């Protein structure tokens, strides 16, 4: 899908859409896969059966192929769109899809509708239209290394506390932190630490019961990635890199993701 460069750097729509930024992200998303998928979708509607939005409320706007319409239009119009168009794209692609990929199992062409919804979300990010909840979680993750803003001290204290509790029933339990050469690196959802330490207790209990050689990382223990949900690939990459580098530095054989 060819996206022509803007004639000049500043290219604002009358209602303030930065079309140059939109075109930049369109070029970054464009490729053989996106182009092929957008061009072969024949709107046959078989994906409808795949979607729980449609199963629960069978209306045309809940057919997964409908979610590709804004993206298709965006490329057809070479990014010449206004704010109202982008708000509609945002509400369709963030608001009516969980990117669960069930629809792809019903598509006769195997079109990856979720990756296309992801691309559309990336366009909304470029337009400054990212939902606030996702934006806040991402900001936390970038600053603290986890999306709930837990400090390293709080994390280590919580691990120590839950290990003490676990030793009441499992005296030989352990929770090694930053142990190089362990087989597994254990990571979490930040709420396992901040709101539900019982979850952490349960994980430690399971891995100790199985006598698994594991370690925790003091600096990269959140394996969730809100950049993925948001469609913000640069942020998603930075968040993933943090965990990958920790796993590499600890020389583990496998990384266990959050549940």
């Amino acid at each position, binding site marked *: 899908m060819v996206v022509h460069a803007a004639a000049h750097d500043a290219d604002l729509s009358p209602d303030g859409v930065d079309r140059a930024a939109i075109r930049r992200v369109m070029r970054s998303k464009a490729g053989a896969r996106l182009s092929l998928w957008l061009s072969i979708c024949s709107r046959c509607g078989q994906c409808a059966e795949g979607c729980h939005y449609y199963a629960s409320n069978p209306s045309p706007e809940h057919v997964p192929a409908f979610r590709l319409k804004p993206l298709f239009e965006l490329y057809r119009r070479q990014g010449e769109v206004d704010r109202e168009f982008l708000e509609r794209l945002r509400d369709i692609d963030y608001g009516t899809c969980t990117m*669960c990929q069930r629809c792809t199992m019903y598509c006769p062409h195997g079109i990856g509708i979720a990756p296309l919804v992801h691309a559309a979300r990336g366009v909304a990010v470029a337009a400054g239209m990212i939902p606030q909840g996702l934006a806040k979680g991402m900001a936390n993750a970038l600053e603290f290394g986890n999306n709930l803003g837990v400090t390293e001290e709080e994390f280590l204290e919580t691990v120590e506390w839950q290990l003490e509790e676990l030793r009441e029933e499992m005296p030989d339990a352990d929770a090694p932190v930053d142990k190089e050469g362990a087989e597994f690196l254990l990571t979490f959802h930040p709420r396992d630490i901040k709101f539900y330490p019982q979850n952490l207790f349960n994980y430690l209990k399971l891995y100790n019961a199985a006598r698994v050689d594991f370690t925790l990382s003091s600096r990269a223990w959140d394996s969730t990635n*809100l950049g993925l949900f948001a469609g913000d690939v640069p942020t998603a990459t930075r968040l993933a890199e943090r965990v990958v580098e920790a796993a590499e530095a600890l020389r*583990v*054989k496998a990384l266990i993701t959050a549940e």
Partner: protein
Amino acid sequence: MKALGFEAPRWLGRSFPFTVLPPLKVWADSFAAGKLPLVKGHHTGPVTFQDSCNFIRNAGFFEESRLLMRHVCTDLREMHPNGNLTYCCGNGGGQGLMPEYKKQKLAALRAKAECIRATGAELVVVACHNCEDGITECVKTYEVAAQVELFSGFLAGCIDLSGHTAQD
């Protein structure tokens, strides 16, 4: 799983010297190797399992989940559809962090609620935090009489501790 297991090598443009596994895969492998002591038939009430899109449909660990569930449950009831074709918990793709779209999310959970209700299960075991919230909202909204529990907590309650206390 999706971010680190599937997307990250492409985002970072390189392969990693380690594999990425969801917790239930590690638990199932440990159990299959005879290393994770779980009490057979520990849970006797009617129970069903929510197949998460990340670990089941996208990562393909359906059999691993059932190996564990069949061992610790005496009354495992499958939803229909289940496995790769199960309906989403409703909370994927960041829906849990977008209150502005909550109304649509809850409306879309009707199909899932009826799947759960039809099993007659009193407990839905979920293997993902997003599923935990989605299914909790689902049973609450559509008044399905079932509790929701994370797979980790459910299995941790089935551990046979005799090997550990004996050493003390």
